[in-house]
């Protein structure tokens, strides 16, 4: 193993890890507030990628305007989903709302198959992002380099919102105790809508960065990233934003390092995510940074 090979793999790991992290934030925030695993999150990510294809290839918009439209449209979709699939079940048992989330996920996947067919579409080539950069013998694209920074910056933005703003305080209150927060006059619906706005816009940014790296858009593209990012969120301690980002990086790095050091096992790359999930659930169910939740009697 040469140092160059290792550095290249390290870069691969950081870049895929930061994409996982971006999506994992969305999972963890919704879970923190609603105690709901939003299975449709990966499908919002998929729809965002389609929005990008249409705004740039079909409407010929410049990419930065396209990106803004994609974020707005994905937020709209996230809010619509919350309004129609989750809000009516706010007081229902938690299992019902989870089933509703699975239904919403299937609905979006089938809708996309119906509207756009199962044939993959090429993601628009955004030259600014796909330009290759070589450092010595290590080849990277611009998007690979900026993705970790984008993720870290967005993590700080999310932390700022949750820790320093009024709506953030309301969010924390709701996540601690739903009923009491409501009694204290917090507008629950507004808080939850805000959570979905943040989660969906991160999914949209993730989709743009993902697409410029893996330029193939299809209806089921959100399934695997969705599952893995959920695992990343659990690994970091679900409900904890920093934990989700940490979990994403660890998962991405673990996958790449498996391929690097254990070459006969390359085919088991996806399995490592699930192995990690099982180990975490056995050894530390609360995740790396998760708090222990005591059930109130």
């Amino acid at each position: 193993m040469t140092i160059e090979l290792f550095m290249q793999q390290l870069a691969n790991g950081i870049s895929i890890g930061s994409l996982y992290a971006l999506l994992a934030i969305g999972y963890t925030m919704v879970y923190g507030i609603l105690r709901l695993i939003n299975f449709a999150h990966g499908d919002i990510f998929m729809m965002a990628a389609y929005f990008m294809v249409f705004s740039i290839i079909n409407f010929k918009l410049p990419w930065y305007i396209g990106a803004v439209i994609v974020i707005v449209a994905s937020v709209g979709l996230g809010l619509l989903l919350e309004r129609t699939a989750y809000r009516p079940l706010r007081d229902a048992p938690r299992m019902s709302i989870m089933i509703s989330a699975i239904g919403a996920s299937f609905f979006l996947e089938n809708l996309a198959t119906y509207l756009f067919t199962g044939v993959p579409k090429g993601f628009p080539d955004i030259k600014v992002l796909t330009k290759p950069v070589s450092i010595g013998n290590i080849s990277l694209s611009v998007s690979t380099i900026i993705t970790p920074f984008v993720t870290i910056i967005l993590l700080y933005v999310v932390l700022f919102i949750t820790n320093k703003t009024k709506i953030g305080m309301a969010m924390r209150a709701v996540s601690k105790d739903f009923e009491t927060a409501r009694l204290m006059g917090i507008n629950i619906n507004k808080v939850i809508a805000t959570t979905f706005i943040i989660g969906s816009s991160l999914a949209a940014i993730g989709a743009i960065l993902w697409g410029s790296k893996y330029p193939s858009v299809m209806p089921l593209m959100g399934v695997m990233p969705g599952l893995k990012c959920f695992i990343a969120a659990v690994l970091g301690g679900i409900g904890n934003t920093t934990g989700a980002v940490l979990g994403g990086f660890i998962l991405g790095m673990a996958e790449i390092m498996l391929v690097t050091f254990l070459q006969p096992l390359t085919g088991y790359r996806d399995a490592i995510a699930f192995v990690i999930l099982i180990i975490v659930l056995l050894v530390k169910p609360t995740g790396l940074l998760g708090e222990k939740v005591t059930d109130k009697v």
Partner: protein
Amino acid sequence: MKRKLSLLISLLMVLSLITACGQSQDSGTASADEDVIKIGVFEPLTGENGGGGLQELGGIQYANKMYPEVLGKKIELVVVDNKTDKGEAANAVTRLIEKDKVVAIIGSYGSGVSIAAGDIIKNAQIPAMGASCTNPMVTQGNPFYFRACFLDPFQGRVMANYAIEQGAKTAAVIMQNGDDYSVGLGNFFINAFKELTGDENSIVDVSEFQVNDTDFNAILTNIKAKNPDVIFAPSSATTAPLIIKQARALGIKSLIMGGDTWENPAIIDVAGEDAEGIVLSTFFDENDPATEEAKKFVEGYKKELAGKEPIIPAVAALGYDAYLLIRDAIERAGSTDGVAIRDALRETKDFEGVTGIINFTEEGDADKNIAVIKTVENGQFVYIDTVVVK
């Protein structure tokens, strides 16, 4: 209010289920009368191989348009979607046989789903004609499964041979774990390459990936370090452009080769400039029609496609042939009995198809020894060579 909303949502979900299955039911509803003969078409229209399945379906439907009748009755195609999924494949074939009562089945694109459906077809004694499923196991030990295309051992050898002719001494292979087509073809290539170079160490890397994987940077980085002359990556048209693009982005200059699934415009669309120079083998070339039927087909189907696709995909030609072979067998059998059709298929002699003269071997495979090698130049598939192996 809440109740209404949840009602609306559940209604929407039910609707989405119906629309998902709806496409396949369209053709199945209108026929209660006895004046039609139903042929099932079993293809992936969604999922990973959706693109290829649609291409093949196009050829079958065109054949149905050209030759709509047999034994004085109308032929009706019943199309089901196997969703590129082995579990779904069993359901789809069972439905064709049990519910739609088809007399024969055409398909499928993708060997894995065809193998999964094989036992059901054998037990129901309904003859099936694969168009482009190239894995040997599709027809092995199954007297009711036939196919119109060449096999992977042949294809793997052709590609290994081509690589060596181009001066390659070392090769790396990338295959999709759990996909019978990809793993089968990959291994046949490995064996042929080792045999032809006479060097056990000529395959420097074998890497596997999982279905729906999009990130190949890690395995490609490993391959880059070993610097092979060629990379052979039999994979679906969905996955291939991602492998090609990431390989080029990592600065890999090796020749990249694939199998018949790569002759799909999606590869050029998605991979763009990076697709230039890839090499693939396929069944058919529209510029070199083998028979009279082929000339007619190329002319007619070109008009039918009307610019939707730049070239006639080989799988469409095979779909067309598969339909004609089945129709011809029903005609000669003079009945719609499964065993009678099967026997008639076996006796097929020098059938003039679009992809050449077709006879069947003992296993039910088309006895073909011609493969076409193509590359991509200026965003188009370009013919390189026709290979005949004796």
